[in-house]
């Protein structure tokens, strides 16, 4: 057992090379929110374990599957009094729905379920079934009055497209409040760094190559969050066609926008998480128009025809990988 602990500590030391002075470096891995969570920080392991408990607590409020969770009650009873965190999460989610003109829609959940992305029992629904279910969607119909939320009958919400990002922001805040000077919160590839890396260098975050097993490149950044939505996650194949889990709220089908992945870089993880999904749905042209109108994020898009599009604000911080898939890189300007 001791050896195991040592090995884990050694791995953590590599990730956060020395926290300066006498400070300890720790790493903690757990499974929550349907993913593998890794917390690393300049602190003892107990501090990270406590943060882990907070993630589990949030999961119990937000999960669509845990009986009695805020979202479960809302989905099953049509109306529910929510905890502050859940009300804020929904309010935030709706603000992004509005900002993206519905490209992000938490009420698309019945379709996600129908396609089997929530249970891994995948199937392709027929058009009639899709149109029928689409009648029961629409973010404007989710009403939020203080901490009370209500939905028309037959509708259901899922906060899956923002919950991990929102949780990462809350955990970062908690760790800072606990006196942790720097760390990395990684919720299954939703990454948030905070503080200054102890050796003074920038944080290095790789972006996955959607066509291969390696990375498309590496970002060198100060404290920020990086979240990728990709068609390679949660997908299945039927009759030679690949179906992925990012449902276009307009069609009720996996978004067919010519993209393989969208990576969003911003200060807040909640924004990265929500926008990576919404921009994936929008597709290249609309997404870059949206970026031109905004000032709070940067992005990298990988298209199905192997182009790598990068917004100019982040271009000099991204180094393309020399191995693996070769992409034609284009810097998109304002």
């Amino acid at each position, binding site marked *: 057992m001791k*050896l*195991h602990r040592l*090995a*884990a500590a*050694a*791995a953590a030391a*590599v*990730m*956060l090379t020395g926290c300066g002075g006498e400070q300890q470096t720790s790493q*903690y*891995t*757990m*499974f929550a929110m*349907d*993913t*593998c969570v*890794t917390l690393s920080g300049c602190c003892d392991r107990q501090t990270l374990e406590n943060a882990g408990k907070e993630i589990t607590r949030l999961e119990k409020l937000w999960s669509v599957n845990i009986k009695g969770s805020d979202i479960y009650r809302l989905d099953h009873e049509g109306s529910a009094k929510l905890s502050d965190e859940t009300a804020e999460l929904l309010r935030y989610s709706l603000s992004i729905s509005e900002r993206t003109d519905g490209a992000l829609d938490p009420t698309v959940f019945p379709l996600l379920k129908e396609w089997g992305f929530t249970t*891994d029992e995948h199937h392709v629904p027929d058009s009639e079934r899709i149109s029928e279910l689409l009648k029961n969607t629409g973010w404007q119909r989710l009403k939020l009055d203080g901490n009370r939320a209500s939905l028309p009958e037959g509708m259901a919400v899922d906060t899956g497209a923002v919950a991990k990002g929102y949780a990462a922001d809350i955990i970062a805040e908690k760790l800072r409040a606990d006196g942790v000077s720097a760390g*990395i919160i*990684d919720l*299954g*590839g*939703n*990454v948030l*760094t905070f503080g200054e*890396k102890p050796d003074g260098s920038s*944080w*290095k*975050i*790789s*972006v*996955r*190559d*959607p066509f*291969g*097993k*390696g*990375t498309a490149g*590496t*970002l060198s950044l100060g404290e920020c969050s*990086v*979240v*990728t939505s*990709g068609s390679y996650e949660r997908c299945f194949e039927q009759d030679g066609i690949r179906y992925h889990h990012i449902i276009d709220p307009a069609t009720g089908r996996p978004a067919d926008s010519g993209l393989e*992945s969208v*990576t969003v870089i911003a200060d807040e993880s909640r924004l990265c998480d929500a926008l990576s999904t919404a921009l994936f749905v929008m597709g290249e042209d609309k997404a870059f128009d949206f970026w031109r109108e905004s000032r709070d994020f940067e992005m990298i898009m990988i298209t199905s025809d192997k182009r790598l599009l990068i917004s100019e604000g982040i271009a000099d911080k991204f180094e393309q990988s020399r*191995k693996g898939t070769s992409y034609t890189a284009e810097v998109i300007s304002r």
Partner: protein
Amino acid sequence: MTAKKAAVIALCTALAAAAACIMMLCRPHGDIVLIKQDGRVIYTLDLSKEKDREIVVEYKGRKNVIAIENGEIYMKEADCPDHVCIHTGRLSGGAPIICLPNRLVIEYADRSTDAAAG
């Protein structure tokens, strides 16, 4: 042994050692791989020294078979429904191999980046 011969041998040894060091430094990442279950390291393997073999890991009655072949590691079998871990293929510099249902993670101990998005 003449002094000259000894000097040549010493020089060759030093050169070989230096070459070995440079080779080690130039590698994209180390060969040390960690297999973690439920957040705990259950195996620490040096892929450069491992012979081809299979490792069976069990979790709550479910089984994963991890294979090491020619210095590479991959998930050969898993009795989970989605088989994401098997589809990940051989472990590379990018994302770790993860079997979520069986709480298993295979990753390099020494990564050149701090985290991987995606």
